[in-house]
Each structure stands twice: as structure tokens, then as C-alpha cells.
């Protein structure tokens, strides 16, 4: 093998290369095309990090020139410097240098959608008060032209005090080179000093800054005057000295009187924006593109709603139908790998660890990847084209009646494939209470891992009979889906009325124009999300799979008769193992549900990943891996208690189905809930809550039916 050249580079060179000479924050509102621009500027030279104690990902890219490396930090979207959501707060904390472990940015790249200068300039205006160098990128300039909007860049630069404004089309790369040059020069430049949009406020802030012991930016003090002490800016107040608070109060009274400060700020700043727009922007009658027409058509209530259901049907179909062949393939590969390893390593503990623990464990993670990736492709495409916001808007009324908001619809529907991407999709929900309620409702949706369990039990115990023109088995499956939906909705309703009761949040959703999704952005985002899933959720599922393997493998049974079939030997081993003992130990708890120790151990083994239960039932009832479902069904039907009563009676099976419809038997989901809520409280609650409901449901079914 060739030597890697890395070893020959002196250590000093590496450290020089790794230390960026400056950092530029990429700031813009959520639909400004910020991420597309960021991806265009940095390409694959980016990494995803973490802000300490925060679930929002930190996207860092580098911009390389001959003699320096500039770090670009893509911040979460924000409409202004006054936070109204969790993600906005993070963006603002980074801008003001309050985020632990993140240097305050040396300069700002303000991303403004050329079709929406109105809101964009509001943000730019606030950013200019930071007294740091700023470059403005006007994205989607092509879309602005088609919409009949012409922007006089020179006049805009003049109104912004000489701030450089670059027209770019991030999807085609037009104007990117010029923007890159501007960015490279930016950190060395001084800040511009434009005529303030609100001179009284700026003067007040300057006055307070002069009295402070440490250098403070005008923007920071302006936020203090307008927002008051939010906690995040407490240190600014402390820096102002002993008479600071009194002075701030005095200015608040002078500037706002009885007006709410935020409202006054919006009025003054937007009046300035309208004034600037009149000078720099000309609107011609728009050219009616297919996008505008499509948008107008989908604005009508009935076509819009029908369109939404069609889109959802396609997504749903794709996730199930397209993923199945790939999933079967992964399954085959896993099985044959396991066989190959056993053939190579023999029958020892090591072979079993590798084959049944590691390979089966990794396989159980990877097998979900096709569904998750297909779902993500659709979600990213819908998000990038601007349709996701429209779906939330169309479903808001229905979702509101169950205590959620329109933004909950996508996570809920995603969860029919798998709760993991569904829960990850809740990030679009700005309201924390709605978000947690959606996260708790999502695991109730019938995910693809529940299907094998349902299929096995229904095929074995529900008679193949016609009810009217419907099939009884199909009807039971449909009933289980409806049961899950009802459970999720009731949970959301319950939690919003109790633990997460709170004031109604405004529902202000920006509805962007339809635009063609950008392949680069989709690909980069998809890679990022797949990586996150594999690393974070994958490590947990994998670890748990190895633990379950160990529980089933140890201690070894010593009374295995060499004349036994392989399956009988495996069953004897399982009975001897910790898992089998645990099943016997908890049998009294599950006996009221009609479960014997074998069902109990299968259920315990299924706690990390519910679909495992089918494999374990196969082993405990001594059928073996290669048995098809028909034989397993027969074995289950003929299984009896020691006194000869059948175990799998109809009430017991109905109870077992209810248990599976409710119980949160999925380590990956728990890990994702932990990650997304940033506390163990919610995964523990969800697990206990759903397990209790499942247990009580199964108990009632067995005792009453």
C-alpha cells in the first residue's frame, strides 16, 4: 500500500491550515435561499457540529484562497435580531457572540431573497447596527426578474451606507465568484456607517455605549432598549454600569411612550424599508409563469386540499413500495453474511457475537435506511420547492381541532413509515409545546416495523373470511392503523390540555412561491441526514442488539443433546439464557394477559426493536430462522400451557395486537426523542406511558373478551 502523504507535512503547516483566519456568519430568513447559497459557496467542504446543550446542528463550511481559510457558519433562519423561536435564539446568540464555544463572527453575510426585499431589508437594517462588516447577497435574482421586479443595486448600496450588495443565483452559480471575492476581502474591512433608519434609537444606544466600561455594539444596546432584559442579554445591562438600568428605562419611555417597543420598532423600521423600496425597486406587471399559475390554482381551497392528499398518497406509496426490494436485499445480504461468518469462525461465542450480534445488529439499523432515505428525499424536495409550508397551511384547521398546528402533519404522516424520521421532521414546528405533543403522538402511528408482527398474528389467528365485500383480515389491519391514529390524536389532545397547556401561539407561516428544487441542496441535505441517522440512532440500536444477543447467548446451556435438531438446541439454549430466565421471572406479571414465559421473553427481546419479536418467537417455538410464516403460524396455534390449554386464544391475540399497537418498543425512537427534546424526561415518559396503555389494553382484551 502507498504511504499516505499526510505524514510528510510538517505539523506546523497543518495547524496553520486548520486555523481559519476569520469567520463569517451567514444570516438570513428561513426561506431566503440561505442553505442553497451556503452549499454553493462551500460545496462539500463543510461539517456538521453541535452547539453545546442544543439540538440545532451547526453547519460550518470553509472558503479557501491561496493564503487564508475563512470559516462560514450557516446560522438557523431568523427574521430579525429579536428571537421568537428556539432556532432564532441560537442564530442571535451566535451573532452576538454569546454562544459558548463559538467565536463571535468577524463579519456577516446577509442573505436576502430578491423577491422579498421587504422583509429582507428589515433584517439587514438590524445587522448593520452590529458595526461589523456586512455583505448582502441578493438570492433568487432570476425569480425576481420573472416576477417583474427590478432592483437598482447601486442605489441600494448607497442607501445601506456603501455596503456591498451582490446579485446571485445560487442554483446556477451566477454571481457566486464575485460574492466569494467580496467575502474574502470582507473581514479586513471596517464596518460601514449608514444613515441610521431610526436616528433617535441609534443615538440613545451610542450614548449608553459611551458610558459602558467595555466596548459594546450599538445593535446589542438597541436590543436591550427594545426587548428589555431577556436574560440572554443580561451581561449587556451589567456592562452599562450602576446607572445603566435607570438610563435604559428613561430611553424606553422617551422612545416608545405607551407603545409596545416591538410594535414601534416594526413601524419605524418598515416605514424606512418602504421608503428605500420606493427608491431602489421597480415592479412591472409580473410575467405569469407556470409557477405563479400553479400557486394561484393551489390557493383555491378544494384543489389545494385534493392536491395535498394526492401528494401524500404518492409519498406513502413510494416509501412502502420502492423501499421493499432494497430492504429485502439488505436482509438477504445480512443473512448470508451471518452464514459466511459462522462458516469461517465455527460455532464459538465469537462467531455468534459477530453473526448474531454485530451483523444482525448493524443489519437491523441499515434495513430502515431505504425507507428513511426515500422519505427524506420527498420531504427535502417538498421543503425546497416550498410545498411543505403550503401543506401545513392547508391542514392547520384540522390539526388545530386536536390541539396541534398545521406544521404537525408532515411528522405524523412520516411516522407511518418510521417514527425516527417523523420525529426528526418536527424541527419545522416553531412552538415547543406543539413540537413535543407531536413527538409524543408520532410513535403511535403504525410504523413499518409493526407490520411483520401484525402480519404474522393476523395470518395465524384471524380467519380468512369475508365481511360484506371486505376481508376480515384486511379489516383488522385497517382497524389497527385507525387504532394507532386515534391513540396518537388522543395523546396529543391530552398532553396539550395537561402537561403542555399553554397560551395559543400565533400561526404565522411564510408561504414561499413554488420554485424548482435544487439537486445539489437536496443531495447535500440528504447525505447529512443519513449520516446523522446512522451515527446517532445507529449506535444505540447496535449497542442494544449486542446486549440482547448476550442475554440470549449466556449462560450456555450444558444439557444440549447432540441428537437434537439445531432448532431444538436453540430453544433449549434460550430457555437457559438470561433472556429466558427473565421471561420466566416476569411471567407472573404477564400471565393475566394470557402470555406464557416464551411470549414474555420474546416481548422483552423486542423492547429495543419490536420486529425482533417475530424472530424470537420463531426461536422459542423451535422453528428456526428458515421457517416460513405458515409453519410458525401453525406452531403458534398448537402451542399450549402445561395443562393443555391453548396459549394463543383469540382474546390473547387481540391483546397482543393492542400491546404492539401501543407499546414503544423501539430504541431508535427513544434515542431520537432524547436527542430532539434534549432531555431524558420525554423518552422516559413516552416509554412508560405507551407501555402502560399497551399493558392495560392487552389485560382488558384478555379478561373481558
Amino acid at each position: 500500500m502507498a504511504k499516505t502523504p499526510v505524514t510528510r507535512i510538517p505539523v506546523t503547516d497543518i495547524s496553520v491550515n486548520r486555523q481559519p483566519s476569520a469567520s463569517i456568519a451567514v444570516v438570513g430568513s428561513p426561506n431566503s435561499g440561505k442553505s442553497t447559497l451556503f452549499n454553493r459557496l462551500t460545496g462539500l467542504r463543510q461539517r456538521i457540529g453541535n452547539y453545546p446543550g442544543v439540538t440545532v446542528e451547526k453547519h460550518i463550511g470553509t472558503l479557501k484562497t491561496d493564503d487564508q481559510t475563512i470559516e462560514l457558519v450557516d446560522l438557523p433562519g431568523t427574521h430579525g435580531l429579536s428571537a421568537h423561536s428556539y432556532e432564532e435564539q441560537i442564530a442571535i446568540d451566535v451573532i452576538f457572540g454569546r454562544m459558548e464555544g463559538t467565536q463571535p463572527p468577524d463579519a456577516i453575510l446577509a442573505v436576502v431573497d430578491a423577491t422579498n426585499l421587504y422583509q429582507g431589508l428589515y433584517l439587514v437594517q438590524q445587522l448593520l447596527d452590529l458595526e461589523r462588516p456586512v455583505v448582502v447577497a441578493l438570492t433568487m435574482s432570476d425569480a425576481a426578474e420573472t416576477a417583474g421586479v427590478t432592483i437598482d443595486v447601486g442605489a441600494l448600496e448607497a442607501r445601506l451606507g456603501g455596503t456591498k450588495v451582490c446579485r446571485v443565483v445560487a442554483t446556477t452559480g451566477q454571481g457566486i465568484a464575485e460574492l466569494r471575492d467580496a467575502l474574502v476581502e470582507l473581514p479586513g474591512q471596517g464596518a460601514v456607517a449608514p444613515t441610521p433608519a431610526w436616528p433617535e434609537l441609534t443615538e440613545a444606544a451610542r450614548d449608553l455605549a459611551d458610558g459602558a466600561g467595555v466596548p459594546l455594539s450599538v445593535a446589542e444596546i438597541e436590543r436591550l432598549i427594545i426587548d428589555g432584559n431577556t436574560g440572554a442579554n443580561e451581561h449587556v445591562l451589567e456592562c452599562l454600569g450602576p446607572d445603566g438600568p435607570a438610563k435604559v428605562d428613561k430611553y424606553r419611555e422617551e422612545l416608545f411612550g405607551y407603545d409596545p417597543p416591538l410594535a414601534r420598532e416594526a413601524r419605524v423600521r418598515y416605514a424606512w424599508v418602504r421608503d428605500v423600496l420606493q427608491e431602489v425597486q421597480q415592479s412591472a406587471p409580473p410575467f405569469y409563469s407556470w409557477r405563479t399559475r400553479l400557486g394561484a390554482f393551489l390557493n383555491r381551497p378544494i384543489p389545494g386540499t385534493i392536491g395535498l392528499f394526492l401528494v401524500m398518497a404518492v409519498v406513502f406509496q413510494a416509501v412502502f413500495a420502492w423501499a421493499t426490494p432494497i430492504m429485502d436485499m439488505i436482509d438477504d445480504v445480512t443473512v448470508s453474511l451471518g452464514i459466511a461468518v459462522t462458516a469461517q469462525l465455527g460455532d464459538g461465542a465469537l462467531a455468534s457475537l459477530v453473526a448474531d450480534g454485530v451483523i444482525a445488529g448493524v443489519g437491523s439499523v441499515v434495513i430502515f435506511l431505504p425507507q428513511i432515505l426515500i422519505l427524506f428525499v420527498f420531504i427535502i424536495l417538498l421543503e425546497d420547492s416550498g410545498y411543505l409550508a403550503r401543506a401545513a397551511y392547508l391542514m392547520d384547521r384540522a390539526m388545530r381541532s386536536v390541539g396541534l398546528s398545521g406544521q404537525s402533519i408532515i411528522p405524523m404522516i412520516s411516522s407511518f413509515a418510521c417514527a425516527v424520521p417523523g420525529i426528526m421532521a418536527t424541527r419545522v414546528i416553531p412552538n415547543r409545546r406543539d413540537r413535543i405533543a407531536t413527538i409524543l403522538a408520532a410513535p403511535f402511528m403504525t410504523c413499518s416495523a409493526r407490520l411483520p408482527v401484525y402480519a404474522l398474528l393476523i395470518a395465524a389467528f384471524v380467519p380468512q373470511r369475508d365481511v360484506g365485500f371486505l376481508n376480515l383480515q384486511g379489516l383488522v389491519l385497517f382497524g389497527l392503523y385507525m387504532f394507532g391514529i386515534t391513540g396518537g390524536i388522543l395523546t396529543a389532545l391530552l398532553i396539550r390540555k395537561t402537561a403542555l397547556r399553554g397560551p395559543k401561539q400565533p400561526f404565522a407561516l411564510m408561504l414561499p412561491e413554488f420554485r424548482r428544487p435544487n439537486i445539489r441542496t437536496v443531495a447535500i441535505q440528504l447525505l447529512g441526514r443519513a449520516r446523522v441517522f446512522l451515527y446517532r440512532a445507529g449506535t444505540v440500536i447496535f449497542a442494544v442488539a449486542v446486549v440482547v444477543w448476550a442475554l440470549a447467548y449466556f449462560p450456555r446451556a450444558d444439557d444440549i443433546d447432540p441428537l437434537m435438531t439445531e432448532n431444538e438446541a436453540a430453544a433449549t439454549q434460550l430457555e437457559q439464557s438470561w433472556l429466558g430466565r427473565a421471561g420466566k421471572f416476569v411471567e407472573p406479571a404477564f400471565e393475566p394477559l394470557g402470555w406464557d414465559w416464551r411470549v414474555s421473553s420474546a416481548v422483552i427481546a423486542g423492547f429495543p426493536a419490536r420486529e425482533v419479536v417475530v424472530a424470537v418467537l420463531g426461536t422459542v417455538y423451535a422453528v428456526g430462522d428458515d421457517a416460513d410464516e405458515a409453519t410458525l403460524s401453525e406452531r403458534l396455534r398448537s402451542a399450549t400451557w402445561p395443562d393443555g390449554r391453548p396459549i394463543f386464544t383469540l382474546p390473547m391475540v387481540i391483546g397482543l395486537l393492542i400491546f404492539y399497537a401501543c407499546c414503544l418498543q423501539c430504541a431508535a425512537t427513544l434515542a431520537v426523542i432524547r436527542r430532539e427534546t434534549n432531555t431524558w424526561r420525554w423518552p422516559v415518559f413516552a416509554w412508560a406511558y405507551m407501555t402502560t396503555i399497551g399493558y392495560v389494553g392487552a389485560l382488558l382484551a384478555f379478561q373481558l373478551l
Partner: protein
Amino acid sequence: MRIIIIFSILRELLQKQAVMEINGKSLASLKRGQKGIIAAVDATDPQVQRLMTLGLVEGTEVELAGAALGGDPMEFRLFGCGISLRQEQARRFKVASLDSGG
């Protein structure tokens, strides 16, 4: 300064001989395709203040672009950008209507 600008815009509209109705009409009472200019905002509610920071302030021209089933939530366009509001929030914004739309 802001008052001057608002008045200048309102005056301009009057010169266009647009039909002015400030008799308690709100954004929620606009018809699809109809435009209105925000005349007054009740800003005491923090939720309304949030909407104001998104540009829904006095003097801004707003068009009702559409609505979901049942007429709620509603989609408005201001300066080319789309924003959706629930009816109860749209009612907080009083408008002077400009034209009946087409």
C-alpha cells in the same frame, strides 16, 4: 417620520380615487384577490407584535391570495411575499380596502 410616510401613502391612494372604507373592516373580511392597506393595528397583544415584525404594519398594502378549506387560515401577500394567518389574528388588523379585485 413614520406618520408622514403613512399619510403620504394614504394621500396617494386617495388621489387614485380608491374606495376607502375604514368602517371596522379587517384583513379577515377581504375577498380573494382583493387588496387592502393596513390602517390600524391593535399592538397590545405580543402575538400581534410578532406579526408586525414580519411586516404587517400600518401603511402596508396586503392582498388576500387564498384560503384553506373553510376559509381558515388565510393567505396574504405583501410586497410579493406570502404569509398565512388564522382568521382570529387577521381580525386584529384593520384595513382600508383599495379595490374589489378581479
